[in-house]
């Protein structure tokens, strides 16, 4: 059934060290095309360190992280900085918790979405603007706001704009760091629904870090549970949440507020 397909990302025994202490250690998983993987845990569990390591912001001090580039799994730490920059321009995206970290706050909404296109070689102004307008519509931002700066947008709109900026170049792999946790509950639901449908329509692979198990339940296929820098449980998201094995996962699941 799996045939000749390869995972997009293959992580084996990976760890990052802060001085003599590991922020995360011995992490192994594979991510397949079209799959959404949630990494859950409380603050200090190592989930953000893991994301930083996957996204090449932090070094991989042991183990291996391989990414499928041109049909071959390539060790990420073997890539030059230039090659990594090329990946960020064309194949990878990163959605930050705080939209201000992922947007240019004093550039228009249209400019924020058009800029990644220009970085991949788009030159025709009219086409860039049309594509930006199309994406604003896709993330439910009124097109008549195209010339406004994100500083004039609500939190939910800023987050949707950041998503458009990331997805406009049709990446294959998107990292998301708590994308909904700065938002009001009603705005969260809308954003999650939007992420979920875009991921399905575009066939994206996503690694999403969240402390919120309800977010994992709604949008992920598989879940890793982290504690003290280690993955303590992993599997199908509904299995991890409905039949948790580790004591800590049982505690997390039993602490969910029923909505």
């Amino acid at each position, binding site marked *: *059934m799996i045939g000749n397909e390869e995972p997009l990302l293959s992580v084996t025994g990976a760890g990052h060290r802060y001085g003599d202490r590991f922020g995360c250690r011995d992490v192994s998983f594979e991510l397949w095309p079209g799959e959404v993987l949630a990494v859950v845990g409380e603050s200090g569990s190592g989930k953000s360190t893991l994301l930083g390591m996957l996204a090449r912001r932090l070094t991989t001090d042991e183990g291996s992280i391989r990414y499928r580039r041109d049909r071959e799994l390539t060790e990420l730490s073997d890539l030059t900085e230039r090659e990594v920059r090329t990946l960020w321009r064309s194949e990878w995206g990163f959605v930050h918790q705080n939209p201000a970290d992922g947007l240019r706050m004093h550039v228009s909404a249209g400019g924020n979405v058009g800029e990644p296109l220009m970085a991949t070689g788009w030159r025709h102004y009219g086409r860039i603007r049309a594509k930006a307008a199309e994406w604003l519509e896709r993330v439910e931002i009124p097109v008549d706001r195209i010339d406004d700066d994100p500083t004039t947008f609500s939190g939910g709109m800023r987050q949707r704009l950041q998503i458009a900026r990331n997805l406009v170049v049709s990446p294959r792999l998107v990292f998301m760091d708590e994308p909904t946790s700065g938002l009001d509950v009603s705005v969260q639901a809308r954003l999650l*629904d939007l992420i979920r449908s875009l991921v399905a329509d575009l066939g994206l692979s996503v690694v999403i870090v969240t402390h919120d198990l309800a977010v994992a339940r709604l949008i992920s296929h598989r879940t890793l549970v982290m504690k003290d820098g280690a993955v303590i449980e992993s599997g199908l998201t509904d*299995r991890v949440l409905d*039949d948790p094995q580790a004591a800590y996962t049982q505690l997390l699941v039993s602490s969910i507020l029923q909505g």
Partner: protein
Amino acid sequence: MMNPLLTVDGISKTFTVHLRGGQRLPVLSGLSFDVGPGECVVLGGPSGVGKSSVLKMVYGSYGVDDGHIVLRRPAGVLDLATASPRELLAARRDTMGYVSQFLRAVPRVPALDVVAEPLRERGVEVETARVRAGELLDRLGIPERLWALPPATFSGGEQQRVNIARGFIAERPLLLLDEPTASLDARNREVVVELVREKLAAGAGILAIFHDDDVRDALADRVVAISPSRGGAAA
């Protein structure tokens, strides 16, 4: 007899509750039965005996401590008890559907799209999928004016009918039903009985828990009785 679609062979399950000092709650041990194509097998026994757990073990939402759950598909034989998450996801998309008692839907998605989604996941074009979804909602008595609304605002019975439509829309060889008629009126129960009969006539295997005796009597080819914390015996 044809090869069964599903062979459940000596499965066992015990929950360990760490929050209560590692208390062990045995649910099932050594349960075995088959489901053939075109056959409706009903799990029987008092409530709380673990009938839903059996369905969840087949679907992969619960782990299996011991035994095998063999699913035969055109693509080959898969032991669901040991399958990888990726294999389980593929089996859910292509081979087995699950209708639970409760609808779990993303807050803002319209009922029509909630129902159409299993077809969309299998690559059916959006308009075709919506037409098919509308037909099913119509049969189940959900008026067209509700189709564009998210089901979160619907009554319990309406949500359950949306859930049934979603579960029945795709052609899958195996269907798992967990009390699909629990909060339906007599007319809608009859529609569900018809839908199940159509699936059976098309060769699907059905493994079900039915709340109502009349639905069970109308559909069951066999009842597998589950007794407290033990395996079941065919009755």
